């Protein structure tokens, strides 16, 4: 239980309430920090499961005829492969990319950063977490069922996830709108909070759409309605793809928006400089949301357009173009001439920028309308969106984890292991996903003649496939470093003695390290006096001014800093 000190001298701590038992302390606690952590645990579980599945898929693609002994219980059919792909995608997109940066870190740090004691609706928050957990169980269960029943269970689970995401989004938006501390005006919000907020608004809009799409598809399956099926079978209908792609397109932004916020925030903190053109960054974040939504709106009511057309990808890429180049410029501007603290969190941030850049370049190819129709099964597309959405977002999540680990657990992650993990993963993902682009181009350039590709191309393809598979094996193996680091640091990590180890400006570092799981009670609200990024880049030990420090009277300020 922590108390903000309104004078801004030093925070102090109260003894935590004795909590009745484990169940009400952790699993049934509606404390935002506990719930945030639970989302992160869920994401951690899912990211390792999903990674294992991608490994299985690549093994199968490289050596289709080899069987794995321990998987003998599953029949070796195309159905199973499709189900595996679906499960990999659902786990990664829903429970890692959507849940971890938004519901995980957002739950934990959004109230702290705006100086609120809790989120607006703690009980809804708890309900949302459990709906998410049930939906994870449902999606996993769907994998083990026969396709007909499995897909229904999967749809119910997705609908459940949508409801949970909507609850989280409403909760976050209301928290930001109504529960900011005194003095925390909108321009003073940290960029992370802006990103979570805009993302919550966007989530409210698009998860409603996915929910509607699921409801329609589910009633097609259960009530034999005719939303996506023609009533004499055989007539083509495109409605499902339409609804789904409107969601899926915006989903990319939903995964990336909080990552943009985290990256901007960490860059400023570790470069010890204010975010360059902070207003423009916030506008660009709004722009990402608005573009994502408007293009969707244009699609939704325009009839007769196939969503897989190059036009679709063209709009997607060009809409991302303007705001993301503003973000890139700001990141580079913040880095310009700064003395970077090159710790692991910063490395992952730089890795994010690199991956985002290369992903955007391959996006340029996809946005060309004169290219032959790009199908979603193409390995070029797979490589592109894994690089820009999956891996880049994961890097941002890892950066956030290294940054906030001292706040969450009172210890630091090991820097040496962290850096080794970063470099292996960074090189690894490039070796995995760049050749995939190449594979896609080969498939495009050498169309199969009479069902069989030319021997030269097929030889090259199988070599590349083996290379990708070996690279993914090594990359997955490198994650053991992370696991060792993470689990080791939880128990044996270097204890953080000071309250603000990164010398950051935002409010979450101003309260004493929170006891996990203790229900937060009324603590006095902090008073916010300044913007979120007051660094002066002098390199001295007090080169930053936290948000809650009151401005000194003018005279004493002149005395203290004559150069201003």
């Amino acid at each position, binding site marked *: 239980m922590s108390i903000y000190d309104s004078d801004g001298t030093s925070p102090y701590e109260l003894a935590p309430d004795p909590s009745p038992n484990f169940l009400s302390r952790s699993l049934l606690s509606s404390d935002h920090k506990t719930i945030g952590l639970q989302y992160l645990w869920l994401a951690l579980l899912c990211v390792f499961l999903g990674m294992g599945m991608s490994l299985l898929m690549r093994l199968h693609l490289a050596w289709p005829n080899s069987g794995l002994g321990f998987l003998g219980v599953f029949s070796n059919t195309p159905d199973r492969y499709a189900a595996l792909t679906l499960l990999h995608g659902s786990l990664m997109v829903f429970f890692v990319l959507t849940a971890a940066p938004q519901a995980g870190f957002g739950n934990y740090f959004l109230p702290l950063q705006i100086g609120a004691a809790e989120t*607006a*609706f703690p009980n809804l928050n708890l309900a949302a977490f459990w709906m998410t957990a049930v939906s994870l169980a449902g999606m996993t269960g769907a994998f083990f069922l026969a396709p007909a029943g499995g897909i229904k269970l999967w749809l119910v689970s997705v609908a459940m996830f949508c409801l949970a995401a*909507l609850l989280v*989004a*409403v*909760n976050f*938006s*209301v928290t930001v*709108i*109504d*529960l900011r501390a005194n003095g925390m005006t909108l321009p003073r919000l940290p960029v992370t909070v802006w990103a979570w907020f805009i993302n919550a608004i966007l989530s*409210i*809009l*698009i*998860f*409603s*759409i996915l*929910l*509607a*799409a699921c*409801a*329609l598809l589910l*009633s097609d399956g259960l*009530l*034999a*309605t*005719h*939303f996506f099926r*023609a*009533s*004499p079978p055989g*007539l083509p*209908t*495109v*409605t499902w793809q*339409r*609804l789904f792609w*409107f969601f899926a397109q915006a989903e990319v932004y939903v995964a990336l928006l909080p990552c943009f916020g985290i990256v901007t925030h960490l860059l400023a903190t570790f470069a010890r400089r204010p975010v360059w053109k902070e207003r423009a960054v916030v506008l660009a974040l709004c722009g990402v949301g608005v573009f994502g939504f408007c293009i969707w709106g244009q699609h*939704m*009511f325009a*009839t*007769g357009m196939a969503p897989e057309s190059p036009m679709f990808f063209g709009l997607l890429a060009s809409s991302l173009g303007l705001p993301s180049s503003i973000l890139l410029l700001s990141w580079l501007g913040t880095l310009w001439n700064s003395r970077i603290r090159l710790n692991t969190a910063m490395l992952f941030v730089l890795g994010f920028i690199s991956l985002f850049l290369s992903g955007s370049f391959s996006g340029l190819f996809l946005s060309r309308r004169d290219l032959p129709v790009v199908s979603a099964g193409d390995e070029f597309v797979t490589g592109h969106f894994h690089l820009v959405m999956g891996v880049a977002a994961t890097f941002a999540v890892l950066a956030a984890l290294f940054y906030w680990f001292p706040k969450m657990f009172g210890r630091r992650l090991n820097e040496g292991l962290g850096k080794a993990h970063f470099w292996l993963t960074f090189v690894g993902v490039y070796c995995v996903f760049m050749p995939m682009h190449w594979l896609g181009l080969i498939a495009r350039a050498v169309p199969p003649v009479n069902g069989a590709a030319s021997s030269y191309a097929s030889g090259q393809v199988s070599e590349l496939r083996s290379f990708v598979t070996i690279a993914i094996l090594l990359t997955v193996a490198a994650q053991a470093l992370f696991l060792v680091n993470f689990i080791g640091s939880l128990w044996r990590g270097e204890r953080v003695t000071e309250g603000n180890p990164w010398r950051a400006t935002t409010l979450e570092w101003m309260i004493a390290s929170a006891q996990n799981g203790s229900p937060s009670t009324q603590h006095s609200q902090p008073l916010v006096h300044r913007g979120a990024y007051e660094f002066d880049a002098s390199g001295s030990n007090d080169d930053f001014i936290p948000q809650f420090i009151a401005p000194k009277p003018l005279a004493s300020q002149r005395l203290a800093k004559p150069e201003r």
Partner: protein
Amino acid sequence: MPGTAIDQDIELIIEDVGGGGGGKPPVLGGGGGDDSSGKRRRPLQPSPRRYYTGVTLAILSILMFFMALASAFIVRRGSNDWIPVHIPAILWVNTLILLASSLTLELSRRRLASSDLRGFRALWFLTTGLGILFVAGQVFAWRQLLLQGIFVASNPASSFFYIFTGLHGVHLLGGLGALLYVLLRNFDRAKVSRPVAAEIVGHYWHFMDALWVFLLALLYLGK
């Protein structure tokens, strides 16, 4: 007139509450006489403003949900297998009932503002009754269609008819639950005062009303 004075006072309080003040109070208790002293005190309880914002955002979300359905309707309507459904006449009566319920809800809130708790209860009860009548009317419309042999799986248009009315009905049932909650809840211990709760529920109920008019227009004009 004393009545009007109190009326204005409570109007002020409601505005005050909406703007972030207020809370749980001697101010907004049933009586409404002893209010002038506590009105400008800073709230100890969390402000009820979050409930307004929350319901507003929930309404936005529900709106998007039905817009997606409407989009599917508009796109699907262009296909060849579309056989229009004739809308049962009772739906027009239902619509009038629902509009009337919005009216009684507002009248009832006005009674509450003039601290006429009995009149508020009676009109609020009437609103709830009209809401239940609407749901019954919708079920009757379904029955009529079923008797004509038009089922949910008959053709795309009938599927849309049932799904629109059904999903709107589900959301309306939530509104009915909220109406009953305001009717039956003892507000002495609640986090929000009765006027605040009544106003928030009123927002949702009017939204359900407008949504139904939109869906009916879509079904009627788009058949």
